[in-house]
């Protein structure tokens, strides 16, 4: 059950988390609660997986290079192929999607050469070609995502 404080923290602190010595105390002061209440509310959100973390969000391709890849894999082999791909530390997202191209994953590498090597290794390892979909442009201005939490 989300309290008013949980909802405020979720909606108001997706960005502009204070860069100060006692950030949780500064948030507490802004919301009129105690630092301990803010810390325990964030801990509850974290422990219950309502947030994945508090921290810096880095746009793609600012540190290292990344690419989205899509593969078409027969249903009966999907899990095996997906497991092989997920085992690469350079793979950070791997989703099954309802489409002829049914496996979608993101590879992040230190540089273009490393990225190409990982993709080649994955293709060899799985025997399926991967369609390369690097980001050409990012149109998203990330100000956080407005959550409707009133009915929770």
């Amino acid at each position, binding site marked *: 059950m989300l309290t008013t404080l949980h909802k405020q923290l979720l909606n108001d602190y997706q*960005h502009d988390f204070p860069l100060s010595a006692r950030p949780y105390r500064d948030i507490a002061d802004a919301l009129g609660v105690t630092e301990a209440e803010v810390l325990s509310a964030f801990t509850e959100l974290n422990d219950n997986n309502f947030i994945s973390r508090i921290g810096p969000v880095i746009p793609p391709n600012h540190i290292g290079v990344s690419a989205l890849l899509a593969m078409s894999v027969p249903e009966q082999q999907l899990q095996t192929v997906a497991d092989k791909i997920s085992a690469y530390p350079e793979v950070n997202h*791997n989703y099954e999607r309802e489409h002829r191209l049914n496996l979608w994953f993101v590879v992040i590498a230190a540089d273009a050469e490393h990225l190409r090597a990982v993709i080649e290794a994955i293709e060899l390892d799985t025997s399926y070609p991967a369609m390369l979909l690097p980001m050409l442009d990012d149109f998203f201005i990330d100000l956080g995502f407005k959550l409707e939490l009133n009915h929770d």
Partner: protein
Amino acid sequence: MLDETDRKIIQATQAGLPLTPEPYQTIAEQLGLTADNVMMRLTAMQNSGIIRRIGAVPNHYKLGYRFNGMTVWNIPDEVIDELGQKVGQLEFVSHCYHRPRHLPEWPYNLFAMVHSKSQEGVDEQIQRIADLLSSYNQGCDVLYSSKILKKTGFRTST
């Protein structure tokens, strides 16, 4: 440009800032730096756009946004910048990217992730994007994720 210390700070904060009263001090101690230096470097990286934002990263799925669609659109190249920016500003779009086509099997060059608490909500969001693109929409598809097979490792906003 990032130096080695900046990279270490990014790496140390990717799993999340510690939930302790002085989180930057905790990170600084791990790296043999001062808290002031950590905060100064994070501020500089935010100002230069290397860090997009610092804050809580909500888990949409857990918060009730169970219906997520990857919408893909075929938009004429000459208008993709203008239209991509408009789509990226819609409040229900969480990522919006220009990616290459692979003809003939993949004609789509604009990707927008949408999130809703219901299928009807997603349908409505797709319609709103279609309305915005109007006659520049030369074809679209929506790919729903049936299974999250991996979501870990280094976190960027991809």
